[in-house]
Every structure is written in C-alpha cells, then in structure tokens.
C-alpha cells in the first residue's frame, strides 16, 4: 500500500481549508466591482476568521450542549466531505467511504444540527430560520436526487471517483440528459449554499434571512467555525458539480505532475465559477420565500427531463 494517496488526501483537505476563504474573497471582490463599490480585497475573509478565532465566546444563558457542539459538527462534516469528493485526484483512500447519496447525507447532518442550534436559544428568529431552512431543504432534496440519479445512470455508478473516471475516459461526452441535470444542479447548488436568489448571504435584515437567522446567536470561535464550514460548503458544491459534469483536469493517477496540474485546473475552474456566481447574484434579486416552490419545482422538472432524455434518447 503506497503512501502517496494519503499524501494527496492530506494536500487536498489542506487546499480546501486554505483556499475556500480565498474563493469567497474572490466572489465578494468581483461582486463589489460589478456593483460599483470598492472592495476590501480578496484576503478579507482570512482576516475575518482570524479576528473571530481570537475573540471570546458569548453564549446565551440557556444554550445547551447542542448549541456548543454544533459548530464542531458542521465543520467536521465539511472537512470529511472535502476528503471524499475527488478534487485533485480520484485515487483517494477516503473516496470509497461515501458515494454521492452519502455526501448528500453528510450535508444533511450539518443542516439538521444547525437547525437544532437555531432553536436552542429560544428566540423567534432562530426558530424562523430553522423552519425555513428545513422547508427549503425538503423541497430541494428530490430535485438534487433526480439530478444525481441522471448523472449516475449515465455513468453507471454513484461513486464520484467512478463518475470522474467514466467522463474523463470519454464514455459519456455531452449528453442532453447531462445538460438538463446540470441546469437542475446549478439551481439546487444555489439553494443549498444559500446564495441569491434563495437566500442572501450578506443580509442581516430580520425578516428575509434564512441561514443567518439560525446562527444569529453565535460568536467567537463558534461563529468562525460555522463561517469557515460555510465557505467550504460553497467550494464543495462547486467541486461536486465539477466532478460530476466537467471533471477534466482531475488527476486519474497519483503522479506529482498530474496532481499539480489538477491543482492549477481547480484554481482556474474556481475562478470561472466565481465569475458565473457573481453574474447570477448581480442580475437576479432575492425571491420571496413562497416563490421558491416554483424555483425548486423547475429544478425538479429539469432533472426529470434529464432523466427522460436519458431513457428516450440515449
């Protein structure tokens, strides 16, 4: 058993931990530019995290152990997911631990406990955030699954490593089913990561916030962990999309050069996706909560169309 896959695994997790704030910084900077504001620079998120880590924690009086352990759990699932998704190479020792469905389950754990933490303090905002988050998540889940299903039907596997290998070896080049599945995936990724038009990550306006409402009472290192985990989650969804729809560049073997190449490819892809995300966030505005049924309904419809395409055309 060679040691190299483990090294790649460690490099990948460190890259994810280190680069996710940079990705957020890139998105925020671009957003400032497109909206005619001057930005705080790409490295602002690092300084934010450092500041939060050095601060003391203020806990509400009746916070229980659920509230205190949730940040660690959310962070833990994000790191674990980062070790499973093939970002640099498909030869990861952790990759067979979980297929795409398990990954969705890992994100669901983080969501479940964040929602519980929102209800722990007993404020109206926390409960409001939890209720909305769980509602949206339950509407997003079927669409997410249909999209995954289409991808895994086309590649005959739910394991991400095998999907990457199948696409890279040219078994399934541009299929119409995958195009539909991809569109559905974009809508779902926007929903799951709490971006505009579903949720506004920059808002603290009481009545419109969803994710922020749940973590309103967090401070200090707890808040830092949750924020960091959120940055990673955005990156992870991008990586999940890349691995299932456009994995070119991810190293098939474990050679140093191919992994370094994969790293460069990853950075480029992140930069491009960031630009796309900023375009979406600048062009669209946040939707009303009850308009989201239509938004997620169309995601489900697109994914179902993808599935039908697979059966009828391919």
């Amino acid at each position, binding site marked *: 058993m060679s040691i190299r896959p483990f090294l790649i695994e460690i490099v990948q997790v460190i890259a994810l931990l280190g680069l996710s704030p940079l990705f957020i910084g890139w998105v925020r900077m671009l957003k400032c530019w497109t909206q005619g504001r001057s930005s705080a620079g790409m490295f602002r998120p690092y300084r934010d995290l450092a500041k939060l880590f050095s601060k*003391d*924690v*203020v*806990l*509400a009086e*009746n916070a*229980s152990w659920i509230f205190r*352990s949730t940040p660690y*759990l959310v962070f*833990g*699932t994000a*790191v*674990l997911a980062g070790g499973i998704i093939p970002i640099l190479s498909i030869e990861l020792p*952790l990759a*067979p*631990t*979980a*297929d795409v*469905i*398990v990954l969705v*389950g*890992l994100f669901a*754990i983080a969501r*479940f406990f964040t929602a*519980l933490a*929102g*209800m*722990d*303090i*007993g*404020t*109206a905002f*926390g*409960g*409001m955030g*939890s*209720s909305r988050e*769980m*509602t949206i*998540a*339950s*509407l997003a*889940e*079927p669409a997410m*699954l*249909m999209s995954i*299903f289409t991808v*895994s*039907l086309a590649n005959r*596997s*739910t*394991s991400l490593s*095998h999907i990457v290998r199948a696409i890279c070896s040219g078994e399934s080049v541009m299929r119409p089913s995958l195009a539909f599945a991809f569109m559905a995936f974009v809508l779902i990724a926007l929903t799951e990561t709490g971006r505009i038009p579903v949720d506004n990550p920059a808002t603290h306006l009481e009545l419109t916030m969803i994710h922020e409402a749940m973590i309103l*009472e967090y401070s*200090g*290192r707890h808040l830092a962990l949750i924020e960091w985990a959120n940055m990673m989650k955005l990156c992870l969804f991008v990586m999940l999309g890349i691995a299932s729809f456009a994995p070119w560049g991810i190293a098939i073997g474990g050679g140093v050069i191919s992994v370094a190449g994969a790293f460069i490819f990853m950075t480029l892809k992140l930069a491009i996706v960031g630009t796309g995300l900023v375009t979406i966030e600048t062009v669209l505005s946040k939707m009303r*909560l*009850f308009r989201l049924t239509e938004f997620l309904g169309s995601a489900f419809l697109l994914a*179902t169309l993808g599935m039908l395409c697979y*059966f009828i055309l391919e």
Partner: protein
Amino acid sequence: MIPSPIDIASASLLLFLLFAALAPLLRKNQRLLVYVFSLLTAAASIMGAAAGAIAVGRGSTERLVLLLGLPDLPFHMRLDPLTGFFLVVIGLLAFFVSVYSAGYLKGFLGKRKVTRLVIFCSLFVAGMFMVVLADDALFFLVSWEVMAAASYFLVMFEDERPENRRAAFLYLVIAHVGAIAILLSFGIMAGAATGFQNFSGYTFDAMRQAKFSPGWATAAFLLAFFGFAAKAGVVPLHVWLPEAHPVAPSNVSALMSGVMLKTAIYGIIRVTFDLLRVFPWWWGTIVLALGLASAVMGVLYALMQHDLKRLLAYHSVENIGIILIGIGLAMIFASFNMPLLAALALVAGLYHTLNHAMFKGLLFMGAGAVLHATEERNMEEMGGLIHLMPWTAALFLVGCVSISALPPFNGFVSEWLTFQAFLLSPSLPSPLMRLLLPLGAALLALTGALAAACFVKAFGVTFLGRWRGHRTPHIHEADWSMRSAMMMAAAACLCLGIFPTVVIGWMDVIPGRLVGSKISATAGAYGWMWLTPVAAGRASYSGPVVFLGMILILAAAYLALHVKAGKIHRGPAWDCGFEKMTPRMQYNATSFSMPIRRIFGFLFDVRERVRLAPQPAHPAFPVRLNYSLRVRDRLWSWIYRPIIDVSFLASRKIGNLQRGRIQTYLIYSFMTIIVLLVLAR
C-alpha cells in the same frame, strides 16, 4: 448441549403464558407485580430473540406439531430464517420495553392497578411471537386474534377518557375487517391447494406445494394484502393508527408501533414470497405505489401534529411505507426474474423493518419518559427539557437522527440500500417501469427530507428553547431502568448503522430462501468495513469510516481550539437587540410547520382562522389576536364518512324488520317456510 431454536422459542412462549396465568395471584402487591413482569418478560423476550438469531444464523428450518387445535387439525409451528428474523425484531424490542416498563409502570402505582396491563402486555408479545411462528392458517388466525384482542385491551387501559374508548373501538373495527380479509385469503389458498375437496390444505406446507391458478392467486393476494395493510396502517387504511397508538401507555405504544405493525409486513412477505411464490409484476407495483403514498402522506400528516405521540404514530405510517417500497421493488424484480436485485430490495426492506423497530421503540420510550415527567403530550406547552432531562434528551436525539436517515445511524443504511435498488431499476425489461420507478426514488428523497424537518421540529420544540407552558410542573429525569432501556435501543441504532455489512451477512439467508439469491458475496466483498451492495464500482459506503472520521475531526478541531481558548461568557440572548422576549414568542410546532403547511396544504382539509380584536381608539394596534387551526384528514371525509353513513342507514333499514309485533314475525315464518318449500322441493 444447546437446545434447538424452536425449543427455546416454545419455552419463551410458555413463560409468557405462565406469567399471564399467574399474574392475578400477585395483584395485591403491585410493586412486586411490576418487577416480576419486567423480569419474566425480559427473559422470555430475549429467549425468543436468541432462538430467532440462531435460526437465522444457522439457516435452519424446524417444525413442531402441537397437541392443540381442532380434532384432526392440529396446530403447526415452524421456525425458518424469515420467522427467526421477525422473532429477533420482536424479541429485541420487547426486551428493551420490558426493562423500560419496570420504571415506567411505577408511575401508575398508587394511581391505578396495572394487573390488567401486565397480563395483556405479556399476552400481546406472546401473540406476536405466535403469529410469526404459526405454520398453518388456523393457528395463524388464532394468534392474530390473540394479538389484536390483547392490544385492544391495552389501548383501552385508561378507559375513563372518551377519546381512548373511541380510538380502541376504531382499532377493533379495522383490525377485524382486516382479519376477515386474511381469513378469506387463507380460505382461498387452502381451497385451491386441495381443489376444494377437504380441509387438509390449511397448513402452510400444503399451500407451498400447491399450484394456484392466476385468478385464485390474485384473489388470495389482494385479500391478504388488504388485510395486512389494514394492520400495518397503509394509506388509506391508516386512520386507526394515529388514534390508537398515542392513547396506549407509552411502553405499549413502543411495542405497537415498533413491532406489531411488523407482523403485517411478515404476513405480506410470507404470503407472496413463500406461499404463492409466482406472481405477475403488477402486484409489486400495487405494493410499491401504496408504500410511496404511505411514506409521503405519513410524514406530511406527522408534520401537522403538535401531539408528540401522535406525531410519532404518523411516522410509523411513513416508515411502513418505506418498508413496503423495498418489498414492492423486490416483488417487481422477482417477477421479472432478477433474483440478485430482488434480494437487494428485500434486504433493504427487511433491514428497515429492524431499524424502524429500534428507533421507533426508542422514540416512543423517550416520549413516554417526557410524558411521565411532564404529564403533557402537547408539544406547544413544552420546551427546554434538555436542561432538566439531559439523558432522555440525548437518547431521544439519537432516535431523531436515526429516523431522519442521517449517516452514520441505522435509518440511513436502509434508505441508502433502497435508493440503490431504485438506481438499478433501469435494467428492468419494461420501458414503463424504467421511466416511472426513478420518480419513486424522488418521492423517497422528499420523505427523508421532510422527516428530518419533522424531527427538527419534534426535538427542537420539546427539548430546546425555553419552557412554553403556563404551569411549571416538577420535572424529573427518567429513572435508571427507563434510561438503560433507551440506552440499549440507542446503542442498537448506532451499531446497526455502523456495521451493516455484518448484519446483512447474517440475514442474507432469508433472500436466499425467498428469491433464490444472496447479496453478501458482493455486499461484503471488501470486509466488514465496506458495504458495496452490487459492486465496488457502482456504490460503496463505510459506516465505520464516516463515524470515526467525524469523531476524529471533531476532536481535532476541539483540541486545536482549546489549546489557548478564549473565555466563554454567558449573557442574555442577543436576538438582534430585541429585549422583551417571552417564551411564548418562540417558534412552536404549529409555526415551525407553517411553510410546509402552506405548500402541501392542498392535500389536507386545513381551516385557519385569525380574529383580531382591535382597540377602539387605535384600530391599528389590536389588543388580542385569536388564531385557530384545524387540520383534518381528507380521506376521512372521502372514504370513511360515507361508509359510516351507509352502514348506519343500512342498519336502520334492517332494524325496521324488527317491530316487536307478533303478527309480523308470523308472516316472516310463513314466508320462510314457503320459500324453503319452493327451493328445497
């Protein structure tokens, strides 16, 4: 020498019946009665479970003919792996519940006699054991009735409340409508087995050897499925379940929801895969479609509830649906002669059967502990119990995580296996099935996500936040016996989630017998840590790695941050700077599910009313707001109301025959004689 499994099972049955017979002698000393009950039923249950575990492990089949029954029609017992598996499911949960009862029933001491409760409780468990052990139609139906009647008396235990009497009556009616259907189904199978010549077809062995014509087989299946579906609470026959389960004492609710419904699952599997054996594909689609309907409707109903036990009861409808999805898929695959896929789907269904028994038992025991402590079932009046009942809260949370299908707990494994079975449906030869089945998977995903939402609500409103009630009762933590029972159930949930490969290897003999294929050769190909149901390339999951990985990263993050940790200050909640917060301002069960009610409300009969009482001087500032909400089951008014009306009308019309006038009766007699003379000439 180790006694054979069927001997252990018979001894366990005898122990239950012995206790039921001797319990009245101990009625004077209620405390002693509770302890003896707890001890004996625990011993008997664990014996039953052990017998089942050995039978499954060995893959053995044993028979026993009892010296009971009608002349020339003796009772038969048979312990094969399928029976053994259900003995384990029933015995394991009955064992936990017996331990739990020692503490729970003490709450009744001094308030009400528990003699009746303990007698019927042991008869109830014995009845469930007999149902799965029975090997002929007669013994099966007798056991089925013992189980139904005993549980009727358990639901009726607190019979001073009218709603309990109503629930018990409804339960009895639907149980018997189901039992009639099962009786007719066995009648058809027994008759078809001997060509309607004699009674010897009543044993299951005779039915196994018979060749059924498609017409008789279909009739037998439809009747049996109707009967068992009524017992399992499949939509639209679920109405009794949310009425009967919550009003029973909580230890009984755990048994009813956790394992009694499973006897119906057993019946469906036994009749289709073992007795009838050959079936067309559309039987499977009926089971699958009703399973999907139950899963989605069950969880949506549960979301509308604010009574903790009722919410859990509706989740039983949901989980029975998930089990039936697995079984329906297995039937479809089996009818297209794809044994490996059928085995996978059947294992998924059976695994969920075991899982549901464990986590639903745990949740009902937790709800019982809450009820015991607060004397409250309405979640709107609760909150913040995590501070007062830390053990119960943590254990209840394990149940919530398991039922919400989150890794690494057990509910996830069985749902994941069901998803894998769905993913393999494109290999079916029928194009229609290939198109429609993946949509079923989407519904299953919706169910899972809604279940998570529902348990965030259940746990969040009950245990988190602050106490919402007007009165503050004296709340105490559950005692050691209740806690240890819940701990065992929680440990079972975790172990079944982390070591699925071992469990599947153990139970693989069942699909081997029923559909002629095993999956452990591929599922466990990479050792106990990896679950690869079809092939490593298709899908893999490792419970131990997920569990360990999460623990390790959590510990690492915690330690790294606590090397030089800043202080933790306690202060009032920030809440965006809002000061005058009261506990009544928290989100409660009704407000939590409001968005879902608005989105899926068209499925229910929802009536929502808001009444404002404005201030005369300033109409913009109302003094009081009244909000009332009523959510009703549409199926009740669509299906049950007309049936009730028609049966009342019919009984009134038939009642007209009896006027109490001697002349009328003489005319009836005269007419009867004339008719008989004409017919029997």
